[in-house]
């Protein structure tokens, strides 16, 4: 994770003390700090309290904050997501954990019809300061119904902020911003990355929405990669570097608002773009980025924009099929080579 490490190292020079934490700890720190800062913040979800979180993200938080603020729910996503939205309208600042984002589908109407539209529909009267968070994208061999990547889905609806992070540094900084936001935020994590470690500042920091991060600099081809795909893109970039193709890897971190300027600036330099994401192809984030980039950098593009996405099939269980279905370094390399006419 050279890019992310570089970032953390850069920060280190300004923020003297650092710590090595994994992604789940970084998230927990953000939650804890914000709960200490603001009494109105509470955490709610399945198994978040007594079980310490299905993926141990909220470990120890029940002990620290008690059952009033760390709340186990029944398996009724529509009910508790909606309840949390109502409580946000009433002045609280809930953080709702979906055990995985797949289970947000039963709460879809509450998220779209209520959370995303409330501020607009009330002419600015009510705010819904809420964070929905949890693991997103394919888990390990968990098959069709448990493997959705929801960046494109939720970013399609005005009124929702959508973030998708892949390092402890980004996760902590952006989650803190999300909890302080006055808007509903879909904060997307990844189960496969919870154990991923990084050196991050000990002191408090926040990362604003809408700022992409260049995870690797390069001149030959821009890769925009989202969430876990950043790591796969970094892998691919190593391989491609050995072939003489230097990729610039941009991690948007927030999908909405999207930092299109950073992407366009990079494309003006490399003249080539490949987008990598775990969403399905049709109408994915790649499609959106393609539209925006060709709109703003039409004359700078030397090749069609490529994309590497989750294939247009539900995720299968068998290992060989699963690994072909998810964007992998091989497919990323192929797409980059094609964009570079190699």
């Amino acid at each position: 994770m050279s890019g992310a490490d570089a970032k953390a190292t850069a920060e280190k020079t300004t923020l003297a003390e650092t710590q090595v934490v994994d992604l789940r700890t970084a998230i927990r720190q953000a939650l804890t700090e914000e709960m200490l800062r603001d009494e109105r913040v509470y955490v709610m979800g399945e198994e978040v309290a007594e079980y310490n979180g299905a993926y141990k993200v909220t470990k120890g938080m029940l002990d620290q904050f008690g059952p009033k603020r760390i709340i186990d729910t029944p398996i009724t996503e529509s009910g508790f997501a909606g309840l949390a939205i109502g409580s946000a309208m009433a002045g609280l600042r809930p953080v709702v954990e979906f055990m995985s984002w797949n289970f947000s589908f039963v709460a879809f109407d509450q998220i779209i019809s209520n959370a995303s539209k409330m501020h607009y529909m009330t002419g600015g009267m009510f705010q819904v300061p809420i964070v929905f968070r949890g693991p997103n994208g394919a888990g390990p061999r968990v098959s069709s119904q448990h493997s959705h990547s929801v960046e494109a889905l939720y970013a399609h609806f005005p009124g929702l902020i959508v973030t998708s992070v892949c390092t402890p540094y980004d996760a902590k900084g952006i989650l803190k911003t999300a909890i302080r936001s006055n808007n509903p935020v879909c904060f997307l994590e990844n189960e496969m990355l919870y154990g991923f470690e990084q050196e991050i500042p000990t002191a408090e920091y926040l990362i604003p929405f809408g700022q992409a991060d260049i995870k690797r600099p390069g001149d030959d081809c821009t890769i925009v990669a989202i969430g876990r795909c950043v790591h796969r893109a970094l892998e691919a970039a190593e391989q491609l570097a050995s072939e003489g193709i230097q990729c610039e890897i941009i991690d948007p971190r927030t999908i909405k608002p999207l930092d299109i300027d950073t992407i366009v600036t990079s494309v003006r330099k490399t003249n080539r773009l490949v987008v990598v994401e775990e969403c399905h192809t049709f109408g994915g984030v790649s499609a959106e980025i393609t539209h925006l980039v060709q709109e703003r950098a039409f004359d700078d593009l030397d090749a069609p924009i490529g994309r590497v996405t989750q294939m247009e099939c539900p995720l299968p269980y068998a290992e060989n099929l699963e690994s072909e279905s998810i964007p992998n370094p091989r497919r990323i390399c192929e797409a980059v080579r094609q964009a570079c006419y190699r």
Partner: protein
Amino acid sequence: MTVVPLAGPSSDVTPAQIRDEIGKDRLVAMYEQMLLIRRFEERCIQGARQKKIAGFLHLYIGQESIATGIFNHLDSATDYSVTSYRDHAQPLLLGVPARELMAELFGKVTGIVRGKGGSMHFFSKDKKFLGGHGIVGGQTPIGTGGAFACKYQNTGGVSVTFMGDGACGQGTFHESLNLASLWDLPAIYVIENNEYGMGTATARAISVEMIAESKAPGYNMDGYTMDGTCLYSCWKTAQTFVGKTRSESRPSLVEAKSVRFVGHSISDSQPYRSREAIASLRESRDCIAKVQADLIETDWASADDLDAIDAAVKQIVQDAWNYAEESPIPPVSDLMRHVFAEEDQL
């Protein structure tokens, strides 16, 4: 269907006893409230005919006693309320100026939500009214969240969620009630059974007759049935369930057996019932007429008093209409405003 005049804990009092408990002043005040709702909505019909009001328009005509009886036990300093798209009565009862509501219906920027919501989406943050909601059953978790906030902030408040008979078939109903009971929330769920969900008679949509009483035990909560066309029944039953929910922080489920005198929405020609049936409903089950008759009979109000009330109410509505007419439409810059709330300086 059995209409239950008074059920649950107050079934042993007579209407006259309740009336006396309410007392003259409060009864007259409630009569005025009900009449304001009625006259406001009658004017809405006119607004729709004149195409000043567009979109869906769902009226509360015939159901005024339900919200009126209940709101007279609530305090908007602490108590939340929320309802469906049939949402004109609540803000009026909460004292939201009729002007702002009519202006909203006219799509004006002076409307309660700046012309962005229309009839189905009245809201009032000041009055803790969490709004009118368009998705059947969508408001139920929201109201539960209001109750959660009351408990979290230890305000002593309760939260009342109004919904239609049709809405209690939705999954959100079930999920909300379970949560409220599990967590001892001060949540009140009021099923306004107006005998239809759109054109579908309740019995064709809900598999039990006494909705609250037969479902409440399945959530370990108290169930109440009240005569939604009788202000006394509503007021008295609400006294019990609002009081209990407030003092015990336990949820209540309430069914108000009621009727609507008009179509589901302004565009419903009501093929499912005859004109005669409607006329006879109006004759026998008009919550306002019942109180009116009683006011006269008890001599608590004279015919002149009633005329004066009507005139005053009509004046409020006329003023609202004028205000709405004269108000400007939203600036085009409003289109992209309020998509996202402004962020605090971090």
